[in-house]
């Protein structure tokens, strides 16, 4: 039987996307924790272009970029499909996955910003949340995937869990639930799913780790 290995880091939202996809499909895998400050030779061999996690290695063959990995997983193991079968619905799902993918950089943008830059970053976050509220979650669905989560829910997971940690680290409330009722509902539904709830990095641990890193980074910025 082919071996499945996943290279990730304990706090990476991208790695968690792959973990959830594999678990949803009931696929056994070996997880390898990477230290991003000291990347293993194996990781650099499997992902020479980007040198990043996650990397899925299936039967010795590496696949890089989380969205590429998820589509691969969905094609190899079709049970509990992560994308709609209809080509048009699939195109719409892929649009929202790309939208989410193109916004994840807002995490590090806010993390690294202070002063005027921080105000600009917050503005961008609010604009993104508005798009989710006004365009992505219309139709009164429980999840982006309908009654069950799919790849779009997984792609937006950084909003459901990692944003809260970021707010704690920078000491700002960006997401006000009453301003984004649909997004708020979705977050609660998403985090209630046992598979998700039981497979999330510890928020306090991430917060402490990130706060320390941010202090050092901002200190060196002002020097």
């Amino acid at each position, binding site marked *: 039987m082919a071996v499945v290995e996943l290279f990730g880091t304990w706090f990476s939202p991208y790695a968690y996307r792959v973990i959830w996809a594999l678990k949803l499909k009931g696929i056994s895998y070996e997880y390898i924790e990477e230290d991003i400050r000291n990347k293993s030779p194996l990781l650099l061999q499997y992902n020479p*272009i980007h040198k990043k996690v996650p990397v899925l290695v*299936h039967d010795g*063959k590496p*696949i*890089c*970029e989380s*969205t*590429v*990995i998820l*589509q*691969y997983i969905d*094609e*190899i193991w079709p049970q509990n499909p992560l994308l709609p079968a209809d*080509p*048009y619905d*699939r*195109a*719409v799902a*892929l*649009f929202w996955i*790309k*939208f989410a993918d193109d916004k994840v950089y807002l995490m590090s943008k806010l993390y690294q910003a202070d002063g005027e830059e921080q105000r600009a970053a917050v503005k961008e976050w609010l604009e993104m949340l508005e*798009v989710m509220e006004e*365009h992505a979650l219309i139709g009164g669905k429980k999840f982006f995937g309908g009654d069950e989560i799919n790849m779009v829910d997984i792609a937006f997971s950084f909003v459901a869990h990692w944003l809260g940690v970021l707010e704690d680290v920078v000491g700002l409330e960006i997401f006000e639930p009453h301003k984004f009722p649909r997004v708020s509902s979705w977050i609660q539904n998403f985090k209630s799913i046992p598979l998700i709830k039981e497979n999330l990095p510890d928020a306090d641990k991430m917060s402490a780790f990130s706060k320390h890193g941010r202090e050092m980074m901002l200190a060196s910025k002002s020097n």
Partner: protein
Amino acid sequence: MAEEVVLLDFWPSPFGMRSRIALAEKGIKYEHKEEDLRNKSALLLQMNPVHKKIPVLIHNGKPVCESLIQVQYIDEVWHDKAPLLPSDPYQKATARFWADYVDKKIYEVGGRVWKTKGEKQATAKKELIETLKLLEKELGDKPYFGGESLGYVDVAFIPFYSWFYALEKCGNFSIEAECPKLIAWAKRCMQKESVAKSLPDQQKVYDFILEMKKHFGIE
């Protein structure tokens, strides 16, 4: 039911070119609507309210946005002719990875080549050549990224060839000198009617870039 296909487009857009090529490869008849990006049509704003960008593919009244998603959609709906994505899942993943790489790198780095000068431009030129060399390495000895025939990565990448002349003039360098195999690949793609008809004349693109530079006050 007769298929109705409309493409909202802008002639120098490499992203629009991707969908033009895919539609041509499949022999699909469609209505091409040129947009004035300084005065976007009501249709564009209605069909792509999130980004308000071209290209937008409208199939039987329903919009598909984002060029690579359009190419994949076209490939799936009109699957009986000229397949663009491989059928093997691992090869498909490899194709998606490289198309994503083109998306992440070429437009942004290429943009810096014509938008900047001095040291910033020198850095951009260096990065562009490094990126192109990596793609050249991935191509290897294959006639196309897709193997024996034009594939997904070829469609994703070849539109940027129409911008090479403009970038070379702006940056005062030769891409062919650094990446001869890549230029050979590009010329091979241009032999195909679907590509030749979808890419604008390189001089026209250069004139357009010069106008943009004037408009943005870039010397």
